[in-house]
């Protein structure tokens, strides 16, 4: 066990893992986090806590993680390289590990242009792949990247994101491989709608044996309406929703589209479960956490297994 986290254990046991995510509030009220965490609780193996997603300022990811854990779910700390230089990154990692956070997701972070503070100076001292490498060095070698010895190495189950739908397609898998080479233990994918492209992606990844080196959690997001589907397809970089998917929603009357979206999401999870190399799903029910239970239960993934192996959570 590299970190001993619940997620790592579930995956190590060969169980189909489920994660979800939880965005911290735009304020200091812990209740907001706790309320969201209630919806998550019992439905997942770990819950991502986002780090100033889309460059909109929110409660810090680490604080969010602690609140999530408090409500009884294992947190997964997201960390972007946009806002911290390598000094801050190392320091925050040590702190998170000390406070018992065991899952980590290394990200670049959206450009500040999209947030409330487009005038901010970004950092990007190192990039997300270099962050993976940095965490792995600290965890496995017990040294800082500078070569100085650590007084107690941090323990993390190291993850990162991959997007099979971004351009150019031909380097999507090589880039995945770079992340594996840098030391990623698991990946969560961008939400998948185009199963054809994703299948091709997986074929390539499998050819390189990546599914054996890294646990792949497939990302899904239930669509609330045809409007949301069209908007995401058009406006969100790296999201590819094929026309038939949109049409299936559009064929429903407006008031039934949400239910249809959930039905489609469940179907998709079941398909993914059958796909070789997929170790779990990451369900991103954006501002729709209350449906997690319905979706995950509907996909036959409840209750979540309890895997005991070695040490348990403190």
């Amino acid at each position, binding site marked *: 066990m590299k970190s001993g986290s619940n997620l790592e254990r579930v995956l190590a046991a060969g169980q189909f893992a489920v994660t979800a995510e939880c965005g911290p509030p735009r304020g200091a009220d812990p209740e907001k986090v706790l309320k969201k965490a209630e919806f998550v609780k019992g439905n997942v193996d770990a819950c991502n806590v986002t780090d100033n997603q889309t460059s909109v300022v929110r409660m810090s990811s680490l604080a969010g993680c602690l609140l999530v854990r408090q409500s009884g779910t294992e947190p997964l700390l997201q960390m972007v390289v946009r806002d911290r230089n390598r000094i801050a990154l190392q320091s925050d990692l040590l702190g998170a590990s000390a406070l018992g956070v065991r899952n980590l997701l290394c990200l670049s972070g959206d450009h500040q242009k999209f947030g409330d503070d487009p005038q901010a100076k970004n950092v990007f001292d190192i990039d997300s792949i270099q962050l993976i490498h940095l965490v792995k060095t600290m965890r496995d070698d017990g040294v800082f990247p500078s070569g100085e010895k650590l007084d107690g190495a941090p323990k993390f189950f190291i993850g990162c994101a991959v997007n099979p739908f971004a351009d150019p397609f031909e380097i999507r898998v090589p880039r995945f491989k770079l992340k594996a080479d840098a030391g990623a233990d698991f990946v969560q994918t*961008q939400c998948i709608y185009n199963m054809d492209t994703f299948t091709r992606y997986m074929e390539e990844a499998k050819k390189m044996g990546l599914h054996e080196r890294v646990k792949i959690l497939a990302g899904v997001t239930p669509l609330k309406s045809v409007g949301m589907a069209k908007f995401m397809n058009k406006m969100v970089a790296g999201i590819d929703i094929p026309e038939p998917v949109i049409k299936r929603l559009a064929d429903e009357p407006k008031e039934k589209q949400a239910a249809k979206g959930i039905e489609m999401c469940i179907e998709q999870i079941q398909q993914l479960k059958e796909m070789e190399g997929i170790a779990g799903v990451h369900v991103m029910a954006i501002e729709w956490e209350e449906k997690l239970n319905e979706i995950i239960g509907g996909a036959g993934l409840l209750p979540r297994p309890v895997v005991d192996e070695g040490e348990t959570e403190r």
Partner: protein
Amino acid sequence: MITGTPKPIEEILEMIEPYEKIIVAGCFGCVTVCRVGGEKEVQVLASTLRLAREAGGRPLEIREVCLERQCDPEYLDPMRPYVEDYQAVLSIACGAGIQFMAEKFARTPLLPGINTGFLGVTERQGEWAERCQGCGDCVLHLTGGICPVTRCAKSLFHGPCGGSVGGICEVSRDVPCGWQLIIDRLKALDQLENYGKLKPYKGWSSARDGGPRRIIREDMI
């Protein structure tokens, strides 16, 4: 070349508000080439300021000059005899030129008439684009001659990020994804294997993060 854009007239008018008699100084160097600070722009700016001030009831006397370069001491000398006859110098050279002039003429306030931009190229008439950040540690040989530090909005060393769509960066429709360019170029050069290598963390000490930089070449002194 160093590029720049004119400062808004309102901002300049505010800057020169206290003065009745100023010099508008252009530069025949980079800012002439990028058409923001040459003789022509001196004339346009001077005329504009005179109009605005006289219309406001406070005529402004302007001496229009254009120096060979504002970043070499010898070229500043011709201004010395008369610079103190004026209350301020409004320079439309780059920030380097303006500062250098400020150092040389200690008793005269120096005002910037342009916003200095970046090290860029003329993509076509009237359109300039950034190519280099002067980071002091060039990796162009590894990236197909395209700089990830400058051309990627996030200066990633292992791009592209998920924000690359159809070769365009999510930051702006007009910005090509630097990493798409690098990959295309590596492919054309048959050097795609360079992509698959992990790159070490960049040392930023040679860039601006190391503090104001200075080059001293003993052999040339």
